[in-house]
């Protein structure tokens, strides 16, 4: 058997990670114009999860991100109802239409979502007033909030919310996509800020850098599947030059606490 630890051994064997908690903190369902997906079915998603040994995928609707929140969230609710033990749902709202936001948040919470996703593709910066009811809703219900981040400005716009909503666990999506030192500062400064790792180009050394900065317990593996594939993104953690214990934290143990538990730190 080859591989430096359990995770590498399983990977070289093409075997699922059955002896670890594995949670994909950042995934999607649905269709998209620019990415011609091969298979958007829940069956394919769950089959992929089984192949890798992913216990839970935390997903939001792609149509909801791009302006079709009601229809997209309907699909999300149906998916998490069909796979309640395998899928965790993030609600996304049409941020440009503030009159729709409260009712959609309430409807989706009642339908089983357990987190909130915001994405700058909605057309408004995270500091825009339309986001206030979203942040407030997450705070009122102690829901984790995953934010797509792809610029220093987005991090700056989000930062005031970290202290204002101390019972919301903020996941900074695509951590390291921009100045990685910025992510490190935020994760160190705020106890409720976590780094979510999916990044298409799989930059070499980034996982090790964050761990080297003392952030292993504040990192969550995510794949961005179905925009990307779980199988590539998980290799960034499985083969990172870090300890097996840190891999366990990043691949699922921290997500189990931060996403599946309630409130920061629990």
């Amino acid at each position: 058997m080859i591989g430096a630890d359990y995770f590498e051994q399983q990977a070289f064997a093409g075997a699922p990670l059955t002896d670890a908690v594995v949670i994909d903190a950042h995934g999607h369902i649905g269709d998209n114009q620019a990415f011609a997906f091969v298979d958007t079915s829940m069956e394919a998603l769950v089959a992929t999860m089984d192949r890798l040994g992913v216990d839970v995928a935390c997903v939001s609707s792609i149509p909801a991100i791009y302006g079709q929140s009601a229809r997209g969230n309907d699909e999300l609710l149906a998916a998490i109802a069909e796979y309640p033990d395998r899928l965790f749902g993030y609600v996304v709202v049409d941020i440009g239409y503030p009159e729709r936001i409260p009712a959609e948040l309430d409807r989706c919470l009642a339908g089983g979502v357990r987190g909130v996703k915001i994405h700058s593709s909605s057309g408004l910066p995270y500091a825009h007033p339309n986001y206030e009811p979203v942040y407030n809703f997450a705070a009122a219900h102690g829901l984790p909030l995953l934010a797509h981040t792809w610029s220093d400005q987005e991090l700056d716009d989000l930062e005031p919310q970290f202290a204002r909503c101390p019972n919301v666990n903020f996941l900074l999506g695509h951590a390291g996509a921009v100045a990685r030192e910025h992510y490190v500062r935020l994760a160190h400064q705020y106890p409720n800020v976590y780094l979510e790792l999916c990044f298409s180009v799989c930059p070499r050394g980034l996982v090790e850098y964050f761990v080297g900065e003392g952030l292993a317990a504040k990192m969550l593996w995510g794949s961005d599947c179905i925009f990307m594939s779980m199988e590539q993104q998980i290799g960034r953690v499985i083969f990172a030059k870090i300890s097996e214990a840190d891999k366990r934290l990043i691949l699922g143990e921290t997500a189990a606490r931060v996403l599946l538990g309630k409130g920061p730190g629990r």
Partner: protein
Amino acid sequence: MSEPEAPACGRLIACDAFMGAPPVPGPDYLPDVGDLLAEMTRLHISAAVVRHRACLQVSAHLGNDVLMDEIAGHPELLPAWFVSPDGREPQFDPAFTLGQMIAAGGRFAWANPTAEGFSLQPWCCGRHYAALVERRVPLLVEYATTSLQDLHEAMAAFPELRVVLLQVPRVGRNRLVEPLLELHPRLHLCFAPAFSVHEYWPDLCRRFGPHRWLWGTHYPDAEGGAAVTGLMYAGLDPEALQAVAHGNIERLMAEVIA
């Protein structure tokens, strides 16, 4: 059947290593021979086709020379030379340069028309393509530096030309590349980390067969472990898995007329 102490795919051979120090070193690694070999050892990669950065930074021919100097004594590093359409002085004959490469052990050529001021159109690279076809040498080109229209016209004019397209982006079912795959059966794609699309690799293998795909790690920029898991967990059947991991590249190398 897997060998003991080997990945389940039998062995791994990467087609896309790109070696050589950049003008300013990055914070995490220096992509020299030692680093590449260490990565190959860590990831149980048996061999890698290697191109050298100096071919772009200085000149194709100096870069090829540097490559051969640096990989000397490491048979697991398989040289790919940048062969420009006008070859190298004093002959200025791409067939001659290609013959030198083959004699030196090279089984792949590569090109970057953007960097060295030429076109992949057959009117510009015709002699080059004829030489590649005559020796059955595959040509490596990167997606970002290649006009797909030029590639189409080249492969239409030279249907026996073997091409491997590197660094294909993750845009789902690629609406530009798939028609080329249908038109040109000797077009191959590299399965590497950035070509990360949910359920796509098994789909490509089903629709185009398992023999059109090589495996790569996008060394040095990407975490090579993502390439390993990308392949091992792709859900390919055993025949396709072994073909992508090593069989297809071994076949292409064996077909070269030495």
